[in-house]
């Protein structure tokens, strides 16, 4: 017999709940459930043991739907991109890091600085967080530990000016990469989003990287949407995946903006930076 709407109701509701329990945002869980429904309506199942068969069909369809969603984003190989720029331009490869408060932008910059210099590139950091207490000292300490220089002005200085200064300095000294750290900000704060637009406009970055917290729930969807609208996101780093987060935030973000996740932050040390793979996320979500 063929699967009908009625028979799919309960399995799809359970699917949505389990996706939500993995921190997939509610509208995204609903969209995935609809995608699964489309795949399964009319599917033929045996009369006996139908419940288990339906559950298995749902599982298979969710896996497919998740992989399809994640495949929409074309992957980025950071080292290749930086190498290509270095061989074709006198300008440094500029990456601006953005995101809401406390997601791990500064720590991620330090990790990526180490990753790039371990791979033979010269790196300069720009402290465009001129607002938060201790921001200058924090980035300075990371820079010292990783063995790279940092350009900073004073608290209250114009963040765009710091970025501009760092990029000019990198160009003059032949430094390969500039990593621009910005202050955390709520995507709902119009003034701060305007400030970020200015930083990005002045920096003309090769990549804008959105740093998101894997522990965030439904807000991950809102954050990704608004940052994408405001400044455009090229790639995503998802942090704190070591905190047992199931990773649904990555699905919400992929659904919202279709941009690749380039790294996962899996701890507080410099080596706690791992490349993202779709299989890892799908396995984790499917439990």
């Amino acid at each position, binding site marked *: 017999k063929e699967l009908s709407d009625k028979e799919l109701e309960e399995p799809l509701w359970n699917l949505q709940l389990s996706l939500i329990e993995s921190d997939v945002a509610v509208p995204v869980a609903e969209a995935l459930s609809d995608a699964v429904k489309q795949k399964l309506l009319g599917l033929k199942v045996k009369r006996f043991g139908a419940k288990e068969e339906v559950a298995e069909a749902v599982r298979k369809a969710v896996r497919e739907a998740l992989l399809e969603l994640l495949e929409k984003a074309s992957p980025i190989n950071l080292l290749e991109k930086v190498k290509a720029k270095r061989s074709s331009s006198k300008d440094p490869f500029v990456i601006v890091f953005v995101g809401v408060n406390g997601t791990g932008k500064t720590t991620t910059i330090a990790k990526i600085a180490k990753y790039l210099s371990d791979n033979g590139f010269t790196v300069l950091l720009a402290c465009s967080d001129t607002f938060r*207490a201790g921001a200058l000292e924090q980035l300075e300490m990371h820079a010292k530990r990783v063995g790279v220089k940092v350009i900073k002005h004073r608290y209250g200085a114009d963040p765009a000016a710091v970025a501009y200064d760092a990029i000019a300095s990198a160009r003059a000294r032949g430094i390969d990469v500039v990593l621009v750290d910005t202050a955390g900000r709520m995507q709902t704060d119009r003034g701060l989003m305007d400030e970020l637009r200015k930083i990005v406009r002045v920096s003309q970055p090769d990549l804008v990287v959105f740093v998101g917290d894997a522990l965030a729930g439904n807000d991950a969807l809102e954050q990704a949407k608004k940052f994408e609208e405001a400044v455009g996101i090229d790639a995503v780093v998802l942090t704190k995946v070591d905190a047992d987060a199931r990773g649904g935030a990555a699905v919400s973000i992929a659904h919202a903006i279709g941009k690749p996740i380039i790294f996962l932050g899996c701890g507080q040390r410099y080596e706690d930076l791992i490349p993202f793979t779709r299989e890892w996320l799908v396995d984790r979500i499917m439990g």
Partner: protein
Amino acid sequence: ALGSALSQAVKKVMKAAIVDEAVVKELVRDLQRALLQADVNVRLVLDLSRRIEKRALEEEPPPGATRRELTLKIIYDELTSLLGGEKTPKVDYPRNKMTKIMLVGIQGSGKTTSAAKLAWFFKKRGYRVGLICADNYRPGAYDQLKQLAEMVGVNFFGIPGEVPVKVASKGVEEFKRRGVNLVIIDTAGRHKSEASLIEEMKTLAKTINPDEIMMVIDATLGQQAAAQASAFHEATPLGSIFLSKLDGSARGGGALSAVAATGALIKFVGTGEKVDEVELFSPPRFVSRLLG
């Protein structure tokens, strides 16, 4: 005629009951979606909605009230009672002896900023406040809290590079000498899977013996809230919760899940990055925001 009047009446009551049930079921479905979008724990949403639906169908609407109005009142009552009631929390610590509040929480949740906010809040209420930096892990943590302490104008104690238990003990001694009656101890961020950091938190609490352990919870925290809060509570019993970053778009359902899981009540909310952007928790306001 009485026979047909009776069957008409029965039909009408049955129809009303069916309509009533439909009204309640629809409200409960809407409630579920709202709470899930607000990041409330899935299990908690299912338990709550089951209980609310049962009450809404079994209880009698008071005279003049509809089944729908009764259901809405039950929703409000169930959520507020989960939060410990409607009243604003009492935070009148004694003035003639020292109270020590230790802040704990996940990395980046807002502990250091919230420590400064609490300092500002209690300084305004006439306490002699002291801030202690017991985070020797995060680069710049000492500078961050020191700068915030200067902004607020309160006593500050820290020893860059020193282990948390030593800084905290020495800080408390120094503050005793200065007549500080409210000490706020900032600690490093940690999560439940970092065994050595959880152990350090236990040791710190044992040594310092704080009067209150307050967990700072980010309003964006999703389905991991209950598990993380429970783990913290198991290691060092939580006295209260500080819900940070409520000025964003997140509705803070994770904090509700944490309250349900640990019994610790929310006392403060953070409404911005500045040290004066802190308020006492208001259950009715939180519930209405939670429901969208």
